[in-house]
């Protein structure tokens, strides 16, 4: 009987460090025990972008970095029975499975790939369910993606059928970790206490380096060793649910500060962290350093899972344009403000517009412009500023017209503006709703790769 399992994180988001899984797999392999590695590569809108790629080409729509992420570690994982669990299937898990199967064949491996689907709600029946659940969805032709957050169960099923790799679309991020634990230890689907613990272990792992010194360094206050080479996290979890967060070799650190920041990341009510599998509860959690880069978290529990599943719906969000121009030297700030005023006066009235002055006030301000109107109370007078103007609207021509007014600052704006950069891109909007569990049917398929 397995008493302890190691789970490492190979990626915490789609843009993560591509070489991170290598050190994680090296350490999992050296441990010799039961192990898995998870890859979390789906943000709120990542899936919509994947759907757009799939529309252009039905063979695409999975995580674009899938191949570079898996190529250096696939052989070691398959040969050492280190399960790979990833939501890198994104908008097209079967296509991702095919890529992985080809990669395995190239590396002369015999591998079983579990493919989890059923999260996609964009079919006619799915849309009907969504409309029954929410009154404020856009019309059908604006919809780009709608995916329900699946739980651990279909992943456990795939592992039970012997999958070496499990590829999913939208699943709750912590389920990537919880599933191999349920599979290894046989935890019940109503063992809320241990499901709560496993879910929060998954929560700590799912953002990769964010628990091992990534997104943490504040020089002189919170220093991080070798931040250019952070070892990604590896959790050691026991059958009882007790767990310790550690990390792969390399830089970074794990201590009570890094674990506290990540434990509360994106958490609202600490007593009710909702997932498809359990309502996790960290209101009584305590964090204990048990060794160098080894932290235990006690006091986590769980309660009954919610009755509904969350669905993220993405739809056509119109256009976003951004233009920037720099001003330097005496009276730079006044010239930048004048330029903002000129652009505002000349831009179309039917689009949203926002101005910032980078170097004085650029992220704290509000879209309504209240903070910008109060600019003098923010920064010290400065001689190196950059005006940023952002426009948004559904009419591409109007948004472009606004952007053109930034470009025209070269010859017609205040003195000595330089370094104009312009960008225009389509935007994906997102909303969410909650649907009955019975409306979602997860499916598991096994694909075999042979050399």
């Amino acid at each position: 009987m397995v008493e302890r399992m190691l789970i490492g994180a190979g990626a915490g988001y789609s843009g993560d460090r591509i070489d991170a899984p290598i050190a994680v797999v090296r350490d999992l392999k050296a441990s010799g025990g039961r192990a898995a590695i998870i890859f979390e590569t789906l943000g709120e809108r990542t899936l919509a972008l994947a759907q757009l790629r799939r529309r252009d080409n039905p063979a695409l729509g999975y995580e674009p970095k899938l191949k570079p992420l898996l190529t250096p570690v696939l052989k070691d994982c398959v040969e050492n029975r280190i399960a790979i669990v990833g939501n890198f299937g994104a908008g097209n898990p079967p296509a991702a499975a095919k890529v992985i199967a080809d990669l395995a064949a190239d590396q002369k491996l015999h591998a079983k790939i579990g493919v989890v689907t059923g999260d996609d709600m964009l079919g006619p029946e799915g849309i009907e369910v969504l409309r029954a659940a929410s009154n404020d969805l856009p019309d059908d032709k604006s919809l780009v993606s709608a995916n329900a957050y699946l739980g651990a169960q279909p992943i456990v099923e795939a592992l039970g059928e012997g999958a070496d790799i499990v590829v999913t679309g939208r699943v709750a991020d912590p389920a990537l970790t919880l599933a191999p634990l349920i599979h290894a230890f046989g935890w019940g689907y109503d063992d809320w206490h241990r499901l709560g613990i496993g879910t929060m272990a998954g929560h700590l792992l799912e953002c990769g380096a964010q628990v091992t010194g990534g997104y943490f360094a504040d020089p002189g206050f919170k220093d991080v060793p070798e931040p250019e080479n952070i070892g990604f996290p590896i959790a050691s979890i026991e059958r009882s649910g007790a767990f310790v967060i550690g990390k792969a070799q390399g830089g970074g650190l794990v201590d009570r500060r890094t674990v506290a920041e990540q434990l509360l990341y994106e958490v609202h009510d600490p007593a009710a962290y909702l997932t498809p599998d359990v309502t996790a509860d960290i209101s009584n959690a305590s964090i204990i350093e048990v060794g160098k880069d080894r932290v235990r978290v006690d006091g986590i529990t769980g309660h009954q899972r919610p009755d509904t599943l969350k669905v993220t719906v993405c739809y056509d969000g119109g256009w976003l344009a951004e233009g920037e121009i720099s001003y330097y030297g005496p009276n730079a700030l006044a010239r930048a403000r004048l330029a903002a005023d000129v652009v505002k006066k000349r831009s179309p009235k039917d689009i949203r517009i926002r101005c910032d002055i980078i170097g004085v006030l650029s992220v704290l301000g509000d879209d309504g412009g209240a903070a910008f109107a109060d600019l003098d109370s923010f920064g010290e007078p400065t001689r190196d500023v950059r005006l940023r103007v952002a426009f948004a609207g559904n009419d591409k021509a109007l948004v472009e017209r606004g952007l053109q007014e930034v470009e025209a600052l070269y010859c017609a704006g205040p003195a000595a503006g330089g370094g104009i950069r312009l960008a225009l891109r389509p935007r994906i909007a997102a909303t969410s709703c909650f649907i009955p569990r019975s409306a979602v049917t997860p499916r598991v398929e096994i694909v075999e790769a042979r050399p």
Partner: protein
Amino acid sequence: MTRLELHALAHARTGDKGNRLNISLIAYEPALYPLLLLHVTEAAVAMRFIHRKPSSVKRYELPKMHALNFVLDDVLDGGVTQALNLDSHGKTLSFHLLGLRVPVPHELARYARRAPGAG
């Protein structure tokens, strides 16, 4: 009594979901936690983020972690898919909270962190 930025007393991280922002605030030392409880109230945080017009600010207490968790509603101009902000996630805002100055009694000031070379 001296007035210090929270940055010297605690660390923080934000997370976003839609138009809702959470900010954790974690005391560097357990001894500093009561000071956070006393001064970093829902009202103080609402005032700190006045330009973002939060519709509500809720504070959760985690005494065993000597941490607070704040949930601010409707402060992200619609959130990552709607806002015109450069930082539409609100990721930078943890350090805006850390810029808040609070009174620190002398007996607790020794726990405060100082930048290297700042005496």
